[in-house]
C-alpha cells in the first residue's frame, strides 16, 4: 500500500509540526515582549510599569517592519535596528527549527518503512488520535462556555438577589450604571422578559405548527414525488434566509400593516408589536416543523398505510388515525426543536417587537425577549463586573437550561419513535 506509506510519513511528520506551531504561537507574544523590553531605553523604564507595558504593546504590533518601528519614535535608530535584527533572527531561527524537526521526523518515519511495516494500521492509529483531539476540543469548548456562564451568574447573584431576578416583575437594568451609584442595582426582575419570550414564541408556534404540519402532510402523503422534490427544498429555503432580512420585513411591512389594520378597527397598536415579530418568526420556523415532520411521516412504514387503506379507510382517515399517531413522537420532537429555535431568535424581535420590557399578554403591545435583553445589556461601554453586564450571563444561563431541556425532550421523543420501527 504505497499511498498508506506516504500518508504515514506525512502524518507522523506534520502532526508534531502542527503541535509545535500551536505551542509556539501561544508563547510568541511573550518572547517578543522579552526581546522588546531589553531594547527599551532606561529613560522610558523609569516612567513606570504602565508606560513600559504600553510601549511594549505598540512595538509588538509594529515589529514586523523596521520603518514602522522607527516611526513610533520610542527607540533610537540603533536600538530599533538591533530590535529588528533580533526579531529577524528569532523568526528565521524558529522557521529553521520547524523545518528541521519536520524533516527529521519524516526521516525517522521513512526509516521505519519497509515492506513488512503495517502503515495502514499505524495511519489508523494516528487518524483515531486526530479525531479524538477534535472531538475533545468541541466538548471542552462547550464545557468552557457553560462554566463561564455559571461562574458569571454566581457573581451576578452575589449582587442581585436570586428571588428578585426570578420573581421580580420590574426590569430596568439601565439605572445600575449611573455614575456614583455603582453597586446600587437597578431592577432585575426577569419575569417581563420571560413572559415576552413566551408570548412571541407562542404566536410564532401558532403560525408555524399548523402551516408546517399541513404542508408536511401534503408533501409526505399527497404530493407526487416530483412535486415533493421541488417543494421541499423551496420550503427549506425559508430557513436559510438571514434573520435580519426577516427582521426588516417584520419591522417595515408587517408591523405597519398590523398597526393600520388595528387602527381601522379602533385598536391602539404600536408599530413594534409582539404580533408582528411572532408572525414573521412563525414563517421563518415553518421549515423546522415541516421538514422533520415530513421525514417522520414518510418513514411510517408503507405496510401500515396499506393495511388501513385495505380496510376501507379513506386517505385522510388513514393519515389521521394511523400515520399521524404513529409519527406523533417525531412530530412532537420537531415542534420542540422549533420552539427552542423560536426562543433563541433575536434579530427579528429587536427589529419588530421593540425593547420595552412590558409585562403583558397583549400581542399588540411592544414586548422584549431574553435574547434581545442580553444583546442590549452587552452593547456599548460598561464595566465588566457591573450587575448590568452580569445579568446577561444569568439570562443566558436560564435560556441555556430552557433550550437544553427542550432539546433533550425532543431527542428523547424522537429516539423513542425510532425504536418503534426498527
Amino acid at each position, binding site marked *: 500500500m504505497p499511498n498508506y506509506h506516504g500518508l504515514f510519513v506525512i502524518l507522523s511528520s506534520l502532526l508534531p509540526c502542527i503541535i509545535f506551531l500551536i505551542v509556539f504561537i501561544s508563547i510568541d507574544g511573550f518572547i517578543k515582549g522579552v526581546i522588546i523590553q531589553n531594547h527599551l531605553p532606561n529613560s522610558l523604564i523609569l516612567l513606570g510599569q504602565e508606560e513600559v507595558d504600553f510601549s511594549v504593546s505598540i512595538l509588538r504590533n509594529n515589529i514586523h517592519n523596521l520603518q514602522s518601528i522607527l516611526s513610533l519614535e520610542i527607540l533610537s535608530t540603533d536600538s530599533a535596528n538591533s530590535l529588528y535584527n533580533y526579531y529577524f533572527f528569532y523568526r528565521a531561527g524558529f522557521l529553521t527549527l520547524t523545518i528541521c524537526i519536520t524533516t527529521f521526523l519524516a526521516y525517522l518515519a521513512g526509516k521505519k518503512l519497509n515492506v513488512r511495516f503495517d502503515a495502514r494500521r499505524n495511519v489508523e492509529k494516528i487518524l483515531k488520535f486526530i479525531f479524538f483531539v477534535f472531538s475533545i476540543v468541541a466538548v471542552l469548548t462547550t464545557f468552557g462556555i457553560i462554566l463561564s456562564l455559571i461562574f458569571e451568574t454566581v457573581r451576578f447573584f452575589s449582587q442581585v438577589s436570586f428571588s428578585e431576578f426570578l420573581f421580580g416583575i420590574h426590569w430596568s437594568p439601565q439605572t445600575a450604571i449611573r455614575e456614583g451609584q455603582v453597586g446600587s442595582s437597578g431592577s432585575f426582575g426577569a419575569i417581563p422578559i420571560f413572559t415576552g419570550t413566551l408570548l412571541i414564541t407562542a404566536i410564532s408556534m401558532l403560525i408555524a405548527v399548523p402551516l408546517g404540519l399541513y404542508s408536511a402532510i401534503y408533501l409526505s402523503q399527497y404530493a*407526487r*414525488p416530483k412535486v415533493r422534490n421541488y417543494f421541499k427544498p423551496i420550503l427549506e429555503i425559508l430557513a436559510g434566509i438571514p434573520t435580519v432580512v426577516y427582521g426588516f420585513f417584520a419591522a417595515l411591512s408587517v408591523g405597519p400593516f398590523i398597526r393600520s389594520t388595528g387602527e381601522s378597527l379602533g385598536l391602539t397598536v404600536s408599530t413594534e408589536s409582539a404580533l408582528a415579530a411572532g408572525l414573521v418568526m412563525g414563517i421563518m420556523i415553518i421549515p423546522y416543523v415541516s421538514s422533520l415532520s415530513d421525514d417522520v411521516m414518510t418513514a411510517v*412504514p408503507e*405496510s*401500515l*398505510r*396499506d*393495511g*388501513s*387503506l*385495505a*380496510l*376501507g*379507510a*379513506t386517505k385522510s*382517515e388513514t393519515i389521521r*388515525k*394511523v400515520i399521524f*399517531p*404513529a409519527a406523533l413522537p417525531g412530530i412532537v420532537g420537531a415542534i420542540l426543536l422549533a420552539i427552542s429555535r423560536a426562543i433563541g431568535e433575536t434579530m427579528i424581535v429587536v427589529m419588530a417587537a421593540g425593547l420595552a420590557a412590558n409585562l403583558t399578554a397583549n400581542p399588540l403591545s411592544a414586548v422584549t425577549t431574553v435574547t434581545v435583553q442580553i444583546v442590549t445589556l452587552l452593547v456599548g461601554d460598561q464595566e465588566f463586573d457591573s450587575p448590568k453586564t452580569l445579568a446577561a450571563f444569568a439570562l443566558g444561563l436560564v435560556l441555556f437550561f430552557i433550550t437544553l431541556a427542550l432539546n433533550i425532550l425532543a431527542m428523547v421523543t424522537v429516539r423513542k419513535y425510532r425504536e*418503534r420501527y426498527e
Partner: protein
Amino acid sequence: MVDGTENDIKPNGNYSSDNNLLIDCKNVDVFYGDKQALYNVSLGINEKEVTSLIGPSGCGKSTFLRCLNRMNDVIDSCSISGNIKINGEDIYNPHIDVVELRSRIGMVFQKPNPFPKSVFDNVAYGPRLHGKITDKDEMHHKVEASLVRAGLWDEIKDRLNEPGTSLSGGQQQRLCIARAIAVDPEIILMDEPCSALDPIATAKIEELIDELKTNYTIVIVTHSMQQAARVSQRTAFFHLGNLIEVGDTENIFRSPENEQTEAYVTGRYG
C-alpha cells in the same frame, strides 16, 4: 349469478362448475409504467372456496391480488386494463366507491402489519371507521367475535390493551386476520400470510383458513406447494405475468395439463 360466462373463463378447461362464480376477471393487463406485469389474465374465483395463486417470484401474483381490491391504485405508475367483476359489478367502473369496495374485501399482508395501537383498537379500527357499530358493548362483542374467529381470543383475551406490535409474529398475523374479519368482508385476500411464520404458527393459520372458507371467499398467494395443496380447492399457476393453468387443486398437483405447471409443482422448475 353470472350468466353465460362460464365458457369464457375456462382458459384450460378446468373450471369446476359446482360452485358460484364470485369474482370474474377477463383479459386483465397490468402495467407498471412501461413494464407489463400481467398479460391478458382471465380467471374466475368461486364463492366460499379457497383459491391459491402459485408461481415463481415476480410472476405477478401479488399484482393480480392487489387488482381485486384496487390496492394498485395506490401505486402511481400502475395502470390496469381489462374487466374485473365482483358479483357482476365492474369494480373498475369510475362510479364505484373504492373505499366501500375495500371494506367488502379484506386483505392480509405478507408481513404482519398491526397498527401501533392496542389489540382492541386494532380490531375495532375497521368497524369504527365504517360507523357500523357505535355501542360500546356491541363493539366489545364484535372484537371478541373477530378474535375468536381468528383463533386468537384464548391466547390474548387478557392482553387487549397491550399494543398489537407486542404480540408474537404468528399472533400478529392472526390479529391482522381478525382485523380484516371485523369489517365483515365477503372476500379475504391473503398475500403469503405465512411466509414470516414458523411451522406451528403456519399450521394454525392454515387451520383458520379452512374454517373461514365456510363464510368467506378466500384468495391466497403462497410459495408453498404443500400449503396450496392443503388449504385450497382451486389453484392458479402464474408464470412471467401469464396465467398458465387453473383448475381443481387436486388436478393441478396430480395431473397438470401444462408442462410448465408440472415442472413447477413437482419442484423441477428453474
